[in-house]
């Protein structure tokens, strides 16, 4: 497994004009988390035009279903995205999860309202806000997220104290 190349992945999406919000562990890190995460999770707008841009942005980076046996006839294009919702992919830039919907957070149109724009590696990217990150983790209801929620709440408290 290779480290995820966040700058190149974010640049590929931004330069292609994809509407997306960074969510999950990478958003938590951008907001102050010190936890290790392996992939880039993005919520993408499910319009035909945006799905076309998204597929095109990743097509040159050999996207493939993570964990699937080699040799499956997988092609990431607009019709593949339209037929599915959430995709966990490996690319030659690292792991990326494309989320049409996030449990407890909805789709891109809902999530983008709880995001803010950040300059990351020369690209303007929308990143989910701390309150919504906490809400989404709570909604997921997974035992493994309890420590994550505790850390995110601690970050929020430190920020309120002026940290």
């Amino acid at each position, binding site marked *: *497994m290779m480290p995820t190349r*966040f700058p190149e992945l974010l640049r590929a999406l931004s330069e292609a004009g994809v509407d997306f919000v960074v969510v999950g562990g990478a958003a938590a890190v951008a907001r*102050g*988390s*010190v936890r*290790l995460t392996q992939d880039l999770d993005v919520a993408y707008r499910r319009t035909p035009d945006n799905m076309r841009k998204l597929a095109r942005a990743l097509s040159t980076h050999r996207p493939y279903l993570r964990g699937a046996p080699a040799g499956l006839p997988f092609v990431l294009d607009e019709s593949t995205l339209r037929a599915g919702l959430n995709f966990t992919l490996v690319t030659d830039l690292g792991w990326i999860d494309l989320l049409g919907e996030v449990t407890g957070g909805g789709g891109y149109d809902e999530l983008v309202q709880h995001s803010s724009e950040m300059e990351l590696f020369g690209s303007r990217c929308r990143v989910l806000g701390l*309150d919504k990150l906490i809400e989404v983790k709570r909604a997921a209801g997974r035992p493994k997220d309890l420590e994550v*929620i505790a*850390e995110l709440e601690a970050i*929020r408290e430190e920020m309120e104290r002026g940290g």
Partner: protein
Amino acid sequence: MERSSERHVDPVIEAYKKDVDRTLIRENLRRSPEERLRALMDMQRFAVELRRAGRADR
């Protein structure tokens, strides 16, 4: 952000919070978001190297 007075306090989360290392968080909050992601990539590279070393030692 939500106001603290409006927030639901979960006793389970409060218990987990006691183990959060706030010195690391404070240090991290002094960095820019991009610096935090660069630190994550360094950590990923370190994890890859540790896994490689672990396999070599088997």
